[in-house]
């Protein structure tokens, strides 16, 4: 249990998806103009990461890694399907996003109204695919670990986008040099936030 909590905190602050690996930057920069939409997109990312990553973990463990198919019988033990992982991960993500969108639309119109427009955007958000690829590369051992990692990094992304949106709301009142306005200053602000987040490096729980 202690390791899980430590992994959760680590994936929020130390290995923050945005500041340490720049994942999901496109939508991070595009949808952070006000706090309300930022909260919507952030929540959608937490949700989709929390659903897709465990599914991809199971697929990775029981289908994709070398000799993972051994549970089908000894003949299958020699099969290595790891080269298929990109296409399987992205197919899972695209179809789950589609599925979640349909379920949410049917059963919770109010949630759909707040999350709905962001869901299709998320299928091509690199934070989602990145989560699955990190899970594969770092070799998380149990389903619980993979899920904790998913929720932690999703929450880290949520925190980052809400913080940036709040800063940008204030920024619109300040006098920025004309060529730096908009995109340029946003990049520099994210850079400074990244430096601030680096103070979490080396924290061990």
């Amino acid at each position: 249990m202690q390791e899980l909590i430590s992994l959760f905190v680590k994936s929020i602050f130390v290995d923050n998806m945005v500041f340490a690996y720049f994942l999901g930057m496109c939508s991070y920069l595009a949808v952070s103009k006000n706090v309300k939409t930022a909260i919507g997109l952030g929540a959608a990312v937490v949700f989709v990461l929390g659903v897709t990553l465990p599914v991809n973990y199971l697929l990775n463990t029981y289908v994709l890694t070398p000799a993972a198919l051994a549970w089908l019988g000894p003949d299958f033990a020699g099969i290595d399907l790891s080269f298929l992982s990109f296409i399987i991960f992205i197919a899972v993500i695209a179809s789950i996003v589609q599925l979640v969108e349909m379920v949410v639309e049917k059963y919770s119109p109010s949630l759909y109204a707040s999350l709905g427009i962001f869901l299709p955007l998320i299928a091509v958000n690199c934070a989602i695919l990145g989560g699955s690829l990190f899970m594969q590369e770092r070799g998380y051992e149990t389903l619980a670990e993979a899920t904790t990692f998913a929720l932690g990094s999703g929450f880290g992304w949520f925190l980052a986008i809400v913080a940036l949106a709040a800063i940008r709301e204030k920024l619109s009142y300040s006098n920025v040099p004309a060529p730096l306005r908009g995109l340029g200053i946003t990049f520099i602000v994210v850079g400074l936030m990244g430096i601030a987040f680096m103070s979490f490096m080396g924290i061990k729980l």
Partner: protein
Amino acid sequence: MDKKIFIEPLFRNNPITVLVLGVCSALAVTVKLEPAIVMALSVTIVTGFSSFIVSLIRNTIPNRIRIIVQLVVVAMLVILVDQILKAFAYDVSKQLSVFVGLIITNCIIMGRIEAFALGNKPIPSLVDGLANGLGYGIILIAIAFIRELFGSGTIYGFPVIPAEWYIKNGGFYENNGLFILPPMALIITGIIIWIQRSYTKELIEK
């Protein structure tokens, strides 16, 4: 054919500094020039050919499932690139780690397919894809050049700062470790955007 298709994405409509597409990988792989160049080449190839293939089949794709069809085409090309890198440039492929796989979700590729390849003939789509990949590459290489020069004192792995300049050899110079850290990539990109916009006034945001 209009040569604008090729020239525009390089500067005036650059995918990173103007359209803000594909920023994630641009920042993460730019600590050194070598992975940046490999990444730029891979993205150029994937963008070009995925635009070409999607443009070939654009009239047969049902509109509702087009995102999944596009993702499959892109994923296939990325798997090819990944396997080729693993076979012929294993060290670089280790350095790039998950970012080769993340070419699939690089917004430049989906963006160009949606905005250009779905409505144009295969050859212009191929040119448009390659040009956008190159526009991405230019920025990537510029950032990597600055970061490697100031952060490690080398260019493409060759030392350019004379060894006797360093403090440990009795000189006055020290590499700036900040340039190797992730946040510096963002700040350099911000400055590149600043420079570009002070020359191209019509890009300035209100």
